[in-house]
Structure formats: C-alpha cells, structure tokens
C-alpha cells in the first residue's frame, strides 16, 4: 500500500494566533547536590585549580573529577590537579542564546569550545568558553589558558573560570 494521503493539516501562524489555548509558565526551583567528586572539583575551582581523578588500572587522569572510573568500574585512586592550560579541540562562534533568541548585532558572540586540558589523559576535554580573542583568530589546536575570576569573587562554580584565552608568546 503506497501512502499518498496522510492525516493532520497543521496551523498557519495566523490560525495559531486565533486558536484557543492554555498557557503555563512553571516556576520551579531545583537544588542539585554536587556529590563527592564534583564537590571536590568545585572546591578546587575556588582555589584556582582544575581537579582530575586518576585510575591506577587504566592509568587515565580523567576530567572532570569523578569518584569511580566508568571504564574499569572501580573507585578512583586519587584526586589531583591538572594544568589550567589546554588545546582547542573544536569551537563555534554562536549567534543565538540558549532559548534560540538571537544575539543583538553589537552583543559579543558566544564562543563555546571543547578544550583538551593539559596534564589530563589525551583527549580529556571539557566544554567551556573562549574569550579575549577575535573570533576569526580562533583555530583548532590553539593553546589556551584559563582566565580566572579574582580569588575573592570565586564561588566554587564552573564560571570561576571566566573563559579560556590564547596563550600569547
């Protein structure tokens, strides 16, 4: 049986405006526990350090810190700081906000990147933002360093690193 006719028509924007509907804007708040490993990771950020964890079985130094190695399925052996420098693995120059609304022409573009952090095992990246760089100057393989908030302003959140900026020689 070949499908040639299907149900459902769809509403045009005008029809949709005119249609009756119920709207709801939830006001819910959540408090997420940091847990053991990410708790330590955030404490370390407050101290200006990026914390990984090491597994003696697979010899990986993992980021972000975790309490068990998901490959070996055993508790990690040690938490240890890695460097606050890294290499851009991939990046974007983003013109929209999280809710798909557009940035205004003069607003700075968002510069998300995956950054492979030095001192962790090869390929261990975290997602963060780039800054203090012209978008056109960013490239894969670029060496970057964390730009920390002033110590007194740090709160133990991922935003204690404002962004990663190019290491200038």
């Amino acid at each position, binding site marked *: 049986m070949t499908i040639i006719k299907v149900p459902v028509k769809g509403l045009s924007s005008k029809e949709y405006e005119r249609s009756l509907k119920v709207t709801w804007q939830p006001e819910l708040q959540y408090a*997420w526990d940091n847990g053991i490993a990410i708790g330590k990771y955030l404490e370390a950020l407050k101290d200006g350090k990026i914390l990984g964890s090491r597994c003696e079985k697979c010899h990986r130094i993992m980021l972000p810190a975790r309490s068990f190695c998901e490959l070996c399925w055993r508790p990690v052996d040690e938490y240890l700081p890695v460097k606050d420098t890294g290499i851009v693995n991939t990046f974007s120059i*983003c013109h929209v906000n999280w809710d798909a609304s557009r940035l205004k022409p003069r607003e700075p573009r968002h510069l998300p990147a995956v950054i492979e952090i030095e001192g962790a095992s090869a390929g261990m990246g975290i997602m963060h933002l780039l800054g203090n760089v012209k978008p056109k100057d960013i490239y894969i393989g670029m060496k970057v360093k964390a730009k920390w908030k002033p110590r007194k302003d740090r709160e133990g959140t991922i935003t204690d690193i404002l962004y990663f900026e190019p290491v200038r020689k």
Partner: protein
Amino acid sequence: MGKRRVAVVGAGLTKFVRRAQETGPELSHQAVKMALDSADLKLKDIDMVTLGTAPDAFDGVHMKGEYLLSGAGGNNKPYIRNFVGGGTGVFAPIHGWMHVASGAADICMVVAEEKMSCCHPHPAGAFITIFDHTTEQPLKPTLIWIFALEMRRYMETYGLSAEDIARVAVKNKKNALDHPSAQVAEEVTIKDVLDSEMLAEPVHRLDISPSSDGAAAMILASEDVAKRLTDKPIWLDGVGWNLDTSYWATRDLYYPRYVEKAARMAYDMAGIKEPSKEIHVAEPYDPFDYKELHHMEGLMLCERGEAAQLTADGVTERDGNLPICPSGGALGVGNPIAATGLMKVIEIYLQLKGDAGKRQVPGDPRVGVAQAWGDLMQVGTVTVLRR
C-alpha cells in the same frame, strides 16, 4: 527457546507540521488508526503496545507515556514507554521487536509521537536540561553548540567544506517533495543553504531540520502471524543499540563509534558482512546535514571521511547506487524527534515492499537500514530490514 523472526506488517504516519491543532494523543490516534487499516487489523488484535516519545519538556507534560496511552491504543493492554533521547524513534521498533521475538506478543503496535510546538518561545530552550547541571548549564549552552562543535571537528578532520555539507540539505529537501508528510520540502541550492542565517558557525539555519509535530506507527508480528496477514512480509532481521559515555567532551567527536557498535550488533544479527555492498537503501538520522554523512560512516556504508565525496558524486541520490534518505529525511520531511526515527524505518519498509510510490528507489532493493541518534551525542539505534 531461541529468538522468533519478526516482520513488519503495517504502518501509519501523520503529516509533519510546525504546529498541529491536534493534541499528542490525537496525533498518535491518527497514526495508529492508519497502521491498523493498512494491515487490515483491529485494535483488539494488538497484544502489546510500545510507545516512544522524547523529553517531557517539549509538552510540559510529565508521565507522557500515560498521557499518550489512549491515542496509542494502549488502554488495558501491556503498554510501556521507551526512551533514548533522539534515538528513540528507531529504538521504539527495537523495543517492539523484543516483545515479539521473545514470544511475549504475536502482534505489537509500535508508536512514536512528538509535539514540540507546545514549548515557548522555542522548543530549543527545553534542551538546556540535557547538559550537566553543575559543570555545563551555568555556561548557558544551547543545543546548537554541540552540533556546531561536532560539525567543525568532523569537517576539520577530513578537510570538508561548507558546500560538501550543504549538499545533503539540498538533496533531502528535494527528495521530500515526493513525501505526503513533508513539512519543509523545497528546491534549494547550495548557495541558498550557505546564504541562510548563520546560527552557530559553521551551522546555518538550512543546515538544520525544523521543529515539528507528528506521529508514526508500525505493526510488528511473529512469522506465523505475518505469513497469514500478508504475502509480502518485510522482516526486521537485525536490531542494535549502544550508548557511549555521557562525558561527551572527552571523546573525539569526529566519528560516532557508538553508531558503529549499534550497527555491528544489528548487522551480526542480520548476517550482514559487507554493509556497503549488501545494503541497498539507507535512512540514517539527519537532524543536521553533516549528521547524514557522519552516520553513513558510523553505519560503515562507506569508508570514514568518504561520505561527502559519495554525496558530491550523486551516489546517495534516490537514483544513485546507494540511495540515502530517499524519504527526504528530517531535513525535508521534518523532525518531530521520535516520530522521525520511526518515519525512517517506515520508509525502508515501504521501499523494500516496492510501495514507496514516487520515492521508490530503482533496482528492486531487498535490504535496508534505518538509524537514529541522540542524547548527548552518545546513542546509536539501528534496524536492518529485509524482504
């Protein structure tokens, strides 16, 4: 007892639209009714129902499985919702396969539904909660970030141009002109894609599928029942699924190894040794145009890094040697997430039956594969169908 062979014996599909007037249960009802009619069955003939639908946040309805129960035809039957993010639509028939292959059911209804338009101002906002709440959400990520990051890594690895990628959107939107469910079918050029709004470099607006409302349904049956119902059963001979680590930034995004693992599982089950030669038509998931290429490689339909060249050479056109997304895919038919995955399995079913109408690929295809993908770029779901 070993596994029983499972056949597809019917299918139904609504139109995919930006905003449906129908509710989710009403959309599901339409697809299910159409599937029952296509197989000449009544709801009382259905032993079990499985329903796939993506995050509750689109509808703002918790217990979405229960919300959609009546429309899916699940009242007073063994009914369950399944979910693996964007991979759900192809996982739904895998879940139905479990019901029938195990002997628990002789006939199983598989339903996939999505109504994204409820979420305002844009359903994209609902995706923020897929990111880690502590280490990622404070950076205010949008879903497009992960696609942009993955697309750039893929392009950089193989030296691909924006044109190489845009060609997929051009092909699929054109293919969709022949699909009665299509939402965004149109003739566009590579230039149109590259001139469309830049959202998150390198992703343009026309590189992306739309958000959509729609539903799909498929009926699976055991071998004996299928042979009674139809003289042309299409066999669901291979299923596979796999999830990679949720620490998505710690694996190289250029290659979807979890898709390969899912494909290997499905191919082994279906006895396929050389997928690039033995598979005649494929529907990889294409929510973004580069994803079609990425997934062709993960499905081992070509060498790694080769998919863009095959596309440029016309191999993946509907009349090419390896037709890819002859339906028009998510880029052309639309992307009501779970319903899209099942739409793809339905397309392979119709192609193998010779019932794809204007979309029929030449060469009397006998083996096809459909695949979906999702969560934090970590899940692959694969089905192999055979006539």
